[in-house]
């Protein structure tokens, strides 16, 4: 059963504010459960796309049963971990081999890393003007501890040829029709060889949940979720750029419009693949329309994250963004994790209280005030504000 608080937060945003929460007024926002998951905000039954309600983004680590679910294709096998194999090969791999899950766990050094996984289209439903696609609100994001092995250790066992350009990935999920392109993705070889890129088999100390990529998935800290291949079954080291719909057409931005490392082998003068997560933040303690009791202690809290440079500071304004105060940052959970922030709110005077939050990365980037429009609705990291009232 849902708790009242979850219902309230899950349906948040039905009140004032220039930007609407996703799904508002469309009659489609509903909470419902997938097997093994708590009630999440359902964006679509099939392929399953479910986002995490705000109430479940309050904890430092997002629970496995609350973590968002995102699929492109509807045939999603329940992979038997005993039968699962990971094929490692490709034209630029010198010694192709395959692994069982036990081989993966025992054959390489295991590491644990805390990282935010954020869908490229998180907040698409807040875009003005609106753009087509899954109409995500704020909840296509979560933070977890991922345990697995370094992809580079696997690649070194296979032997990376001098001409290697990209590493291609495939997963066990597939399309309904053979005419639909399989969801295969690639990474630049240097990102695949980064020590932080993992093949993970545990999430928050438990085996990966089915809906989050069991039995093993790719973890690409600092890069958007599209590269975090679920139900990983194949890795290929190649000297050619991967040429398919999901690389050449989808998940692309206007070239030069955003900061972030370039994916050069996939870039053209017009468009370039989305890569790194932009500095961002989320208020988790309050939603627009909330009332604060006059004279009573109130604290604004939330999370801030970026591409792994780390959060330098979070600032809060209560005077229409004219002046800013530094929020207190909580313990650093790791540079790819999100950072919790808090700041007491002044509740002495009755009346409306609009609170804006902006985060700044150690890379020097700060959340912008205005959206850089792009037709696919990616990279919404503009300064968030909530309209509260002291009564």
């Amino acid at each position, binding site marked *: 059963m849902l708790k009242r608080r979850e219902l309230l937060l899950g349906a948040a945003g039905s009140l004032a504010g220039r930007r609407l929460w996703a799904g508002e007024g469309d009659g489609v926002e509903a909470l*419902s459960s997938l097997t093994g998951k708590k009630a999440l905000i359902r*964006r679509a039954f099939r392929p399953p796309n479910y986002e995490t309600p705000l109430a479940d983004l309050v904890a430092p680590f997002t629970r496995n049963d609350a973590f968002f679910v995102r699929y492109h294709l509807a045939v999603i096998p329940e992979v038997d971990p005993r039968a699962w194999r990971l094929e490692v090969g490709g034209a630029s791999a010198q010694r192709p081999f395959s692994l069982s899950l036990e081989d993966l766990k025992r054959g390489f050094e295991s590491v644990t890393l805390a990282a935010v996984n954020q869908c490229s289209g998180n907040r698409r439903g807040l875009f003005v*003007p609106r753009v087509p696609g899954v109409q995500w609100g704020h909840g296509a994001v979560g933070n977890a501890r991922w345990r697995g092995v370094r992809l580079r250790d696997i690649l070194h066992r296979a032997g990376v040829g001098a001409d290697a350009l990209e590493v291609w990935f495939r997963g066990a999920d597939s399309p309904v029709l053979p005419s639909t392109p399989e969801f295969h993705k690639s990474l630049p070889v240097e990102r695949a060889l980064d020590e932080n890129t993992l093949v993970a088999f545990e999430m928050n100390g438990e085996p990966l949940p089915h809906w989050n990529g069991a039995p093993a998935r790719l973890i690409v800290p600092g890069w958007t979720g599209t590269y975090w291949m679920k139900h990983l079954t194949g890795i290929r080291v190649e000297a050619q750029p991967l040429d398919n*719909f999901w690389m050449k057409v989808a998940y692309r931005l206007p070239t030069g419009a955003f900061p972030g490392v370039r994916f050069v082998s996939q870039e053209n003068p017009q468009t370039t693949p989305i890569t790194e997560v932009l500095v961002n933040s989320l208020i988790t303690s309050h939603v627009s329309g909330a009332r604060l009791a006059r004279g009573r202690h109130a604290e604004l809290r939330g999370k801030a994250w970026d591409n792994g440079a780390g959060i330098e500071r979070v600032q809060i304004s209560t005077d229409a963004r004219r002046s800013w105060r530094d929020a207190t940052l909580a313990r650093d959970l790791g540079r790819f994790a999100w950072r919790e922030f808090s700041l007491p709110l002044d509740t002495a005077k009755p009346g409306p209280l609009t609170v804006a939050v902006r985060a700044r990365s150690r890379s020097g980037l700060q959340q912008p005030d205005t959206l850089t429009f792009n037709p696919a609705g990616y990279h919404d990291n503009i300064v968030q504000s909530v309209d509260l009232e002291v009564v």
Partner: protein
Amino acid sequence: MRRTPQRLGVAAVVLLAPALALSGAPRVPSEADVQLKDGPGRELTSSRCTICHSLEYIPANAPAMDRGAWQKTVQKMRERFGAPVSDEEAQAILNYLDAAYSGKS
């Protein structure tokens, strides 16, 4: 590896529904609850789109859509995703989607 369509997950939930009803919990919603608006072309649209996806993608996207955007979407489903839709059917689906779900202001 066992290849089980996601539909089986939905079926399992549906099978649980009577037990939940007895316990007084609300009925578990399913894909079948999503119905498109009445209008010419509704059945055709429903039958073709549900080959690959449930229908709430359509109302959910309505605020972002006008005839031109629906035209691009129908074309994308046919050309990029290989939807088995003839030229004639595509026209009827476009007319239906535009009439029922063009919500862009």
